[in-house]
Structures are given as C-alpha cells and as structure tokens.
C-alpha cells in the first residue's frame, strides 16, 4: 500500500524555488533515508509535505487523500490540519517548548482526542526508546542538553498516532556517540503499516538501517538506491 505519493511537487520561499518538479512515493512499512548536502532541499521536502513552506504546488497524496495542491501564502496555516491526518514531524531545530516539562512536551505530541487518552501508554513506549528521558520527566525542557532536547523533539513526534513519521536531521549538532544511538533507536522502532522518512546528512549513520536511500541534489531526487550505499555514483552529488 502507498502511504505517500508526491507528483510534480515544487516548493520554495518567496522568489526562491527549492524543489523542482519532484516525484516520490513511500510504501507502507518502509523506512526511507533522505540524504544529500546542506541546502539541497531535504528540509524543504519534509516541510512541503506538512505545508510549512512559503509556497508550494503539485500533488501530495497521503493514504489516498490529497493534502497538497497550490498554495501561495499562509505558511503553516494548513499544517495542523495535515498533521492531524496522521503525519508526525520532528522538525529541524527541534521546536520544543522550553517552559514546559519534558513530560508535557511529550504529551503535547498526543494531540487528537483518542491519542490524548492513551498518552500514558504512549509516553511509556517513547521512554523505552529514549531511556535517558525517564529521569528528566519533571524537568523544564529549556534546561536540557542538546541531545536530550533532540530526544524530546523526536519523542514528541513518536507520541502521535501517525502513519508517516518525518524526522529531520536527527544527528545535527550532536556528539557522534549520541547521534549514533539516536538514529539506531529511530531505526529500531516497529513501524507496522506506517512509514518513516529520515533526512540525514551523515550518510554512514543510515548504512544498513533503512530500507531505501534517496539522494537529493539541487532540489531534485537524483538517486534511489537500496539499503546498500556502496554503489552510489558520484554523479548523484551525494558524498559519503
């Protein structure tokens, strides 16, 4: 089953066009790595799916429902509507709530009524994925270290009852050891019929952990490789 299908998607900010006529499809149960250098549109691609770009155009079908289309203003106006359909994003820069406790930050991810009622069980599952957070539950999120904040941000996304998880640069700015653990934890989560896209600059982190790797270069998908990263051609613009 197709979870997500993008067709002819372009997006950008003001006069800048970041994505060029891009096609992409993600199947149920798939874990996709999105690799490529800084500034080539990985974040924009994830943001486009949830309507967080300045403008966008093209068809985005999520579980058979059109969530894309042409939009020229209103950044983020449709985002709450889209994520409630079952898409969870852990954005770049974390966007956690500094004055709320770790527990409240996690709970905020369980937005919809039904998910909210099961938040305790969900929180326990997230704490299994990120054990260091268990002791910090009552602490204000603004006082956490970078790695802990990232866990809160990703954990908040995992709290949602989502079909599609979008994780933007989980390793960015973290110490190597911490980022390895974080990405490993992300790749061990049982997706069931859902899917996950992990945008990552640090390609070796994904090696052998994802089902498929997509390479982004200058706003286009240049490469669609299996889980082996060995035979990526240099022309793909993806530097290992």
């Amino acid at each position: 089953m197709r979870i997500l299908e993008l067709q002819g998607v372009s997006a950008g900010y003001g006069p800048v066009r970041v994505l060029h006529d891009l096609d992409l499809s993600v199947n149920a149960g798939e874990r996709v790595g999105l690799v490529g250098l800084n500034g080539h549109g990985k974040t924009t691609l994830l943001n486009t799916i949830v309507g967080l770009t300045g403008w966008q155009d093209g068809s985005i079908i999520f579980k058979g429902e059109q969530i894309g289309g042409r939009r020229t203003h209103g950044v983020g106006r449709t985002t709450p509507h889209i994520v409630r359909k079952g898409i969870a994003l852990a954005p770049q820069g974390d966007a956690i709530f500094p004055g709320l406790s770790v527990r409240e930050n996690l709970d905020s991810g369980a937005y919809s009524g039904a998910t909210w009622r099961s938040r305790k069980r969900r929180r326990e599952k997230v704490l299994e994925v990120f054990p260091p957070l268990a002791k910090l539950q009552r602490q204000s999120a603004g006082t956490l270290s970078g790695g802990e904040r990232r866990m809160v941000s990703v954990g908040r996304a995992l709290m949602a009852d989502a079909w599609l998880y979008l994780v933007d640069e989980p390793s960015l700015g973290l110490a190597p050891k911490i980022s390895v653990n974080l990405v490993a934890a992300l790749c061990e989560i049982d997706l069931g019929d859902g899917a996950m896209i992990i945008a990552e600059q640090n390609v070796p982190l994904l090696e052998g952990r994802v089902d498929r790797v997509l390479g982004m270069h200058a706003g286009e998908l240049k490469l669609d490789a299996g889980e082996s990263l060995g035979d990526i051609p240099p022309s793909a613009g993806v530097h290992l």
Partner: protein
Amino acid sequence: MIDVLISAAVLASMYGLIAIGISFTWASIGMLNLAQGFIFTAGGYTAWLFAQYAETLGMEGPALSVGVLVFGMGGSALAGLLVGAVAFLPLQDRANFRTRSLIATLAISLMGTQLWLVLFGSQNKPLPPIFGEGRFEIANAGISSQQLGTIIVASFMLAAVIMWMRSSRHGLQMRAMMMNPLGAAVVGVSVRTTGMRVLAISGALTGLSSVLLAQVFFVSPTSGTQPLVIGLIISLAGGLGSIPGTVAAAGLIGLAEAMTARYLQQSLVPFVLFGIVVLILIFRPRGLGGLLEDVRE
C-alpha cells in the same frame, strides 16, 4: 494597615483578571490587544442590559447576582471573539501582524467608545450590588461584603483558569503555542482556533473584572480606559506570558495603588504605578516573570 491590605487585594484581583487576559493574548498570538477596554465595557453593558430586563421580571437575590456575572462574562467573551474576527483572523499570517493588529485593536477601541456613546448615552449605568451590602469586622478593620466577594470570586476564577491551563489538553496547547508557535503547529495545534479560544477566555475574565469594578465605579462609555492602562502596566511588569509573574505584578501594583492613595494622594497613583513599571523594566527587562520562570533559550 489592614484596610490598606484589603483594598490592595481588591484592586489586585480585579486588575489581575484583565492583565492575565492581555498577557495570554500577547504570548499566544502575538497581539497586544488595545481593544481590551472595549471588551471590558461590552461586558459591563451586557450585564446592565440583563439587570434592566431582570428587574422587569422581578428577579432578585442570588439569581440576579449570578445572572449579572454570567452575562457580563458572556458579553465580554463575545466582544473578544468579535475583536478576533476583525483584527486577528484576517491579519494573522500577513506581514507585520503585530503592528497591524495593534492598529486594528486601537481602532476598535476608539470606535467602541463612540458606539457605546451612541447606544447608551454618556450617563453612568449602575449595576445591582451582587454581593449584598453587609459588612464584616476582621482584625479591627471593616471589610464590606462587596470587597470580600470581589476577592473570593476573582481569586476563584483565576485559580480555575490557571488549573485548567496546567492540566487540560486545551490548556497545554495554549501554553505550547506561547512557547513555540512552529512546534505547536507541528503537533497539530491550529493557531487560528486556539487564538480565538484565548480571546474568548481573556474576554470572559475581563468581563468578570468589569462587573466587579462596576460595583464601585458604574459602567460608562470610557470606563474601560483606566483598566486597560493598568492591565497593560501589570502585564508588562509581570513579563508578558508569565502567569506567576502577572499574579505577582497584580499584587504589587494593587498594593502600590492602595498605599499611595492612603498615605500620599490619589492623584499621584499613575505616577507611582508607571514609576514602578519603569524601574522593573530597567532592572528586569523581561518583567517579574523572568525571575520566576527561568528558561534558557
């Protein structure tokens, strides 16, 4: 001394209600709501209209009191939604929203005053005493049932709203939106829906303070100006968006006003209040809330 403390508590509880509304609105949607004075008078007039109608029905006692409170809060909540429909929803994701909404709410405030003048005339409208007219003795000082009622009702409402903000799902959304609008959108919180909810709740709190203040000062077309100014002072001094900071600032400003009026002169009150705010902002630019909610960005 006790009587000064009592009047300080009365002032603090009434002002605190308005300031919390201004503070919430600013922190959650980035709109400095200068129409809070219009919202204030809207509640007063709604309560007055209800009281007129209830009189023709011969209603009195607790039913009348509760009705006046409910209609005052309801009228102001509706006015808050109206302000949102005019100054928030159409402008929200445009450039310079903060400046534009500031101008829009100022316009609503000015037009509102004229509207009340046209509709109700310039004469002061009294509200029926909702807490009766009794008097009690506490530690050699008299406290009227109106003062006691004001303190109890206002503290109860404030506590209820704060509890709700701390424990419910919608409250969590509002606090999340105050801290990080992008994060809130990503977890599914709609700024527009939540913003309107904030405006309605702020309105209801303002309406309550309008009814409480009208027990002493009547309702008139311009009766919202003074509470708006004091509300702005308190929310600035408290640190916009900080609940404990605002409550502390309300207490401080109430005490300052009561002491100035008692030991110096009533006409010096605005000087003292603005002086305090200037001092607080010089030494704590983020307001008192910065002391209490220590957050590392």
